[in-house]
């Protein structure tokens, strides 16, 4: 059996993101997510990829014309805790029925049909990335006929989450296996949000592969992680803080050339 070499990660270039929402729509379709009549900004909506709108007028009194807006596509950040060799995402250890786990490829999984809907994982998630099916899933018109057979259809009363579309990887691996390729590390894939992005703002790949674009972007000067201010601290201070508690240490990186977006990651 081949040893897993991959560690999937993502880099999202906010300078390229136009906020069109194609990633969110593609994600909903790929993962069989329900769409309700009014799903615009409801805190009960079921979506893996949320487009958060931020503006630069939080700290200063900007006038009309000077206000800048940015959209931050936010999905599960696939946290791993302080020690990447022994990943401890905040949501995994809390599940009372082992409905969620972290794989050796670094992806935090969720088994729809094992979940009892206690929402403890949802409470533990610092990125509000997990969603609960408050209602029985509803599909408008002929949408139901286009459901993907690779993903479980969510049922009412369960928590579901983004898995970096790991079912696509499984599908690709099966396809390669049929061709006689047995090494799982030989197969790469692209999640639906990255495929759908018209400006190529979402880059997905293997963080263990130093030559991959995502690895290069993660080390870019413009890179930062969502509300992960420990990254900016000196090494000594970082060590001291990590002795106090775990940090999410997410595998999704954001890139921006605008300082105000990075400043926005800190609470006042």
């Amino acid at each position, binding site marked *: 059996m081949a040893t897993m070499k991959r560690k999937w990660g993502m880099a999202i270039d906010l300078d390229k993101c136009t906020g069109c929402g194609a990633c969110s729509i593609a994600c909903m379709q790929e993962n069989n997510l329900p769409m309700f009549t009014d799903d615009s900004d409801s805190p009960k909506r079921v979506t893996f990829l949320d487009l958060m709108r931020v503006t630069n007028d939080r700290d200063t009194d900007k006038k009309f014309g000077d206000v800048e807006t940015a959209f931050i596509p936010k999905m599960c950040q696939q946290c791993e805790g302080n020690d990447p060799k022994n990943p401890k995402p905040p949501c995994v250890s*809390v599940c009372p029925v082992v409905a969620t786990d972290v794989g050796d490829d670094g992806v935090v999984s969720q088994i729809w049909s094992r979940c009892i*809907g206690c929402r403890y994982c*949802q409470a533990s998630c610092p*990125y*509000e990335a*997990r969603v609960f099916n408050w209602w029985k899933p509803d599909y408008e018109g002929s949408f139901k006929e286009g459901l993907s057979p690779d993903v479980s259809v969510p049922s009412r009363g*369960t*928590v579901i989450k983004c898995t970096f579309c790991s079912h696509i990887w499984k599908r690709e691996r099966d396809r390669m296996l049929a061709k006689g390729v047995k090494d799982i590390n030989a197969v790469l894939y692209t999640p639906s949000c990255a495929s759908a992005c018209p400006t190529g703002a979402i880059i997905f790949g293997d963080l263990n592969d130093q030559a991959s674009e995502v690895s290069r972007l993660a080390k870019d000067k413009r890179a930062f992680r969502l509300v992960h201010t420990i990254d900016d601290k000196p090494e000594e201070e970082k060590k001291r803080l990590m002795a106090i508690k775990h940090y999410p240490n997410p595998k999704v990186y954001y890139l921006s050339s605008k300082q105000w977006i990075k400043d926005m990651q800190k609470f*006042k």
Partner: protein
Amino acid sequence: MEILNQIKDEWNAAKTACLNGITGAMKFCKDEWNGYTRNIKITLLVLFGLVGLFIIFGIQILGWGLGYTDMSNLYPFGQWIIGDLGLVGLGGGAFTMGFFLYILRVDKLKPLINSTVLIGFMCYLFTLVFLVFDIGQPLRAWFGYAYPNWGHGLMPQSMLTEVVWCLTFYFCVLIIELVPLPLEHPVLQKFPFIHGLTHYMHKLMWIMAAAGTFLSFFHQGSLGGGMWGVLYGKVVWYRPAYFFTAIVAATAGGTAFMALCAYIAGKVMKKEVVPWDSFQTLAQISGVLTIFAFLFQAWHVYMQATHFVPAFDRSFLDIWGGYYGIWMVVLMFAAYIGAIVLLNVGALRSQERFFVAGISCGVGAISFDKMIVVLHGSSTPNFPWKSFAGYNPTIQEWGIFLGGLATMILIYMLFAKYFPLFPHLNKHGHGEEHAH
């Protein structure tokens, strides 16, 4: 033909017996109802009305889901979880009393023990009931036993796994502790076997008290504090030693709650249900425990302000804004101080009004603590561009919550009327003259 006639006769006899039974039951209920005062009648109507809402909304929530609540993806825990934490915390008085009576042999607490065991049992029963409503897939509730998250070691990995198992075991202990109470009914006591059984159960109850204390230490800590303290991604909740605070707070607030319930029962029944001495002893115990609970809470606030919140790169005062912010913390500490002063100063505690105020403060302190945990924990924003969230329970949530509490009160009333909930009443001829 003869057989048919025989069947007909037997059918008629059964019908008559049935009708007589129904008529008798209706007459009994009517006589009972007419025997009540106006105030009791109004109370009963309100309580039964709430139980009706509990049933209607219970069917709606179980059948159509949690969409009818005001909980959301931003606010995953709501009123029922406050109820769970509060009931288990206040029900903690049961194991504390059991420990003091059966292990430390504080015999003055004996007149309170039946009432305490019943309240403890109901607190845990309704915690489980609220949990069933709160989980999205009630039919999968057994997954907690079938697929527990034990992790790799002996200790459970998920605090909720620990809660599920410990709560179940302790609930079994409470059932065993409760059994002698209905069996002590004078009618049943005429049977020598039942008489002997209750006698020996009382003799051996220290084993249950010890088991209960052992189990309660774990789940009081895990549900009340550990469950929240391990959430390292959440600034309000992350308090690693909150586990121990929850245990001490439950012993303090729980004992105050047991005293308060028995006191209210005495007031409603207009009888001395428990000797004043017993109330004083329990209040004294509660007062001392409240000092420890206060010290633990104060230490936590200090640790949060100086260690944990700065580790999130946030300021302590900043996280205590919003609807359920600093004012609730102040109120909780005020209740703690009230309970400490009123229950520990003998001159104050011995006066009835200060005694009542003291135990109410004890109950209030632990209730506020649980409300802060649930309401404020979810309310605090995770992203700097978001504001504090609000939560406004829907009528379905209120109906189930208040209906559950109303059912508890009705069961308590039933036991107080028909079973020896307060043995002191039988010993001292109802003691109307000593009513407090």
